[in-house]
């Protein structure tokens, strides 16, 4: 791909959403809802077209010539050992895949928002934030310079903050936005520290990522302490963005935002930025096996924990949020063991079916007039048939039932976990457990919401969503049916077998990285069989419990240890622990400062300064008589004195 084409595409990819954000913000209030409804989704669609052009151009190029790095302009040149920051972008299979998902799924979600936010008072604000998010996310994935990447990294946190707190008159939304932002900043700081360590230790001439990777390979020993530290810091940044233990508590609260926001930011794109970061920095992580092990363990641990929590939540969006956390845990596990292509594959399919689940849930919430408690739902399959079908398609994909999208991507990454990663194949066994949990919570949610008898009058009165909210959902439902098959097994004449892996792998081998050895066919078959069995057992249990007419939580909960149900119900007490450790002590300190230190010590000084100024001005005030004569006398005397001084001292 020529640099001109790559540069043009990147500029267009940036320009469209940015123009949309500015246009909606500045012109939207004047031109009204119609304008926003066209421009908001329109610019994202234009971005998608650019991404498709980039994909076609990449596929037309030779396999080894698919990575193009372009310097758009020089941003700052410090001159200190020649350190430069350029606005560099990379068009390669990894970034193009991300762009396709961001703009493709992003467009469908924007389209859906037109219907979902149809009664909102300020669609211009909403679409402006949404377009800003798309811009920030594209900046993050296209950046080929560490500083630009960090700019995008921080900007997605900002747009996430703005959108979670979109209903700013709701205190819980504002709280959730603040919590999300503060957690993100913890990750940001870790990322900055990693960047500082890279700059000071590598003495790189520029912060261009390929340069950093090349220097790192030459100067860091395999498994050295320094590179391990850098990678752990990078991983902490990724954990904060991707809602992994121990920085995961913000994601469920982020569901306070409008549902399209949950679909776009907190399911499909932003939360997977951590996976992207580790995949992008694979050269560094390949040098630090200990950091990789940490990443894999944290990923799998979060997957289990979130799966357990999802079992007992009663808010429809929170169940899906915990399932997102769990699935991203699997992706993080994949990139932690070095199965980068598998992780990105699961990212792509997950973006499709999780956006679908959120938007279908949005339809339900919309039909029930903002009811999110699943105990008050039930029987919605009768009135919302199309939404039910789509939700089912998403659930099957999420649970990893064969031929649906999630099956292919999940089994591929778990299969690689059989051979690789820390304590293989122990973590693989845990992964099968996650499969069981996934089937359980997914179908518990599906049955509770859509089957059985309607519980309240509202569920009887529910009606199917309007076409503008149904069409994107249907498209994604078809996507979650075929995406896995198409990308793994291929469609004759259109895409080949193992299309995605073949497309992505060169990115990870280009600078001397090695691919993981694939398990032998028999082993692979066995792992798929076991994994699928796990998914089916989970889904089957949910099915069985449902049809035995025992969806009663009490009955089921009585069968498992009390500790587990309590942990699940209270989300492993993380909010309480953080509250006791991080929120209450500073608050207590602040109170002590206010009641003791301030009145006793600080106030005397502060008010003393004020009093001194007041008494001084009281004195000077006497000079101001208001009579012209006094002022004129003062001027004359001063002028006379000046003349005398001149005459005596200046010769």
């Amino acid at each position, binding site marked *: 791909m020529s640099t001109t084409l790559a540069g043009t595409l990147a500029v267009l990819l940036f320009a469209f959403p940015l123009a949309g954000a500015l246009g909606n913000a500045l012109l939207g209030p004047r031109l009204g809802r119609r304008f926003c409804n066209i421009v908001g989704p329109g610019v994202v669609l234009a971005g998608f077209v650019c991404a498709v052009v980039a994909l076609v151009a990449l596929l037309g190029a030779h396999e080894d010539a698919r990575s193009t790095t372009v310097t758009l302009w020089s941003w700052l040149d410090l001159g200190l050992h020649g350190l430069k920051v350029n606005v560099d972008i990379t068009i390669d299979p990894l970034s193009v895949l991300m762009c396709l998902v961001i703009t493709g799924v992003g467009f469908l979600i924007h389209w859906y928002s037109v219907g979902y936010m149809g009664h909102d008072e300020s669609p211009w604000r909403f679409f402006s934030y949404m377009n800003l998010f798309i811009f920030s996310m594209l900046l993050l994935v296209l950046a080929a310079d560490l500083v630009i990447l960090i700019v995008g990294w921080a900007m997605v946190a900002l747009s996430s903050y703005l959108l979670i707190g979109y209903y700013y008159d709701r205190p819980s939304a504002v709280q959730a936005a603040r919590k999300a932002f503060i957690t993100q900043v913890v990750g940001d700081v870790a990322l900055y520290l990693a960047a500082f360590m890279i700059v000071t230790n590598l003495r790189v001439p520029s912060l261009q990522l390929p340069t950093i990777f090349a220097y790192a390979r030459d100067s860091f020993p395999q498994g050295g302490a320094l590179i391990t530290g850098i990678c752990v810091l990078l991983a902490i940044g990724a954990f904060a963005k991707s809602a992994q233990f121990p920085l995961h508590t913000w994601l469920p609260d982020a569901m306070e935002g409008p549902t399209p926001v949950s679909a776009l930011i907190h399911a499909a794109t932003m939360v997977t930025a951590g996976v992207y970061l580790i995949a992008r920095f694979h050269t560094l992580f390949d040098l630090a096996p200990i950091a990789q092990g940490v990443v894999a363990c944290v990923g799998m641990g979060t997957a289990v924990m979130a799966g357990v929590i999802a079992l007992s939540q009663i808010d429809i969006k929170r169940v899906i949020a915990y399932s997102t956390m769990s699935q991203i845990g699997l992706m993080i596990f994949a990139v932690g063991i070095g199965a980068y292509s598998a992780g990105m594959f699961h990212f792509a399919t997950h973006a499709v079916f999780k956006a679908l689940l959120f938007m279908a849930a949005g339809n339900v919430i919309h039909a029930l007039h903002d009811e999110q408690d699943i105990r008050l739902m039930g029987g919605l399959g009768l009135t919302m048939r199309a939404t039910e079908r789509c939700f089912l398609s998403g659930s099957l994909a999420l649970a990893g039932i064969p031929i649906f999208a999630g099956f292919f991507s999940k089994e591929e990454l778990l299969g690689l976990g059989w051979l690789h990663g820390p304590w293989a194949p122990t973590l693989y066994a845990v992964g099968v457990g996650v499969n069981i949990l996934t089937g359980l919570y997914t179908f518990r949610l599906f049955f509770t919401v859509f089957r059985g008898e309607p519980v309240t009058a509202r569920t009887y009165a529910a009606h199917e969503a309007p076409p503008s909210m149904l069409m994107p959902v249907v498209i994604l439902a078809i996507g979650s049916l075929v995406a896995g098959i198409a990308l793994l097994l291929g469609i004759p004449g259109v895409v080949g077998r193992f299309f995605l892996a073949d497309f992505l792998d060169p990115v990870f081998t280009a600078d001397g990285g090695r691919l993981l050895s694939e398990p032998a066919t028999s082993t692979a078959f066995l792992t798929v069989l076991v994994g699928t069995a796990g998914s089916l057992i989970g889904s089957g249990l949910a099915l069985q419990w449902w049809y035995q007419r025992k969806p009663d939580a009490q009955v089921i909960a009585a069968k498992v240890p009390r500790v587990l149900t309590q942990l699940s119900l209270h989300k492993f007490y993380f909010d309480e622990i953080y509250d006791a450790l991080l929120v209450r002590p500073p608050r207590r300190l602040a109170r002590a400062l206010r009641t003791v230190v301030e009145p006793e010590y600080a106030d005397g000084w502060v008010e003393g300064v004020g009093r001194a100024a007041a008494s001084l001005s009281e004195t000077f005030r006497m000079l101001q008589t*208001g009579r012209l004569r006094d002022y004129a006398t003062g001027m004359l005397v001063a002028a006379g004195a000046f003349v005398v001084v001149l005459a005596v001292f200046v010769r």
Partner: protein
Amino acid sequence: MIDIQVFPLLLGLSAAMFTIGSVGVLVRRNPLVVLMSIELMLNAVNLAFVDYGRFLNSEDGQVFALVVIVVAAAEAVVGLALVSQVYRAGRELDIDDLSEMRE
């Protein structure tokens, strides 16, 4: 040509005018008279400027005097406008009485 002895005389005249003007500013209560006294002071200074300019064989003194005349005209406009406004407000024209700016 003017005799060289004229310069100190003119300077003396300027000093006298300046003194008369400044005393007028300080002691008179009618704002119109005060304005006239200020005018007198300015013209005393003009005289000194021109005098020194001639003494030093330079045009700078005259140029400066012209500038002072322009500024004096502007000052007279503002001052007279203030006086007429005070008069229209029905106030007595007494400088000592016009001291509300203290507050």
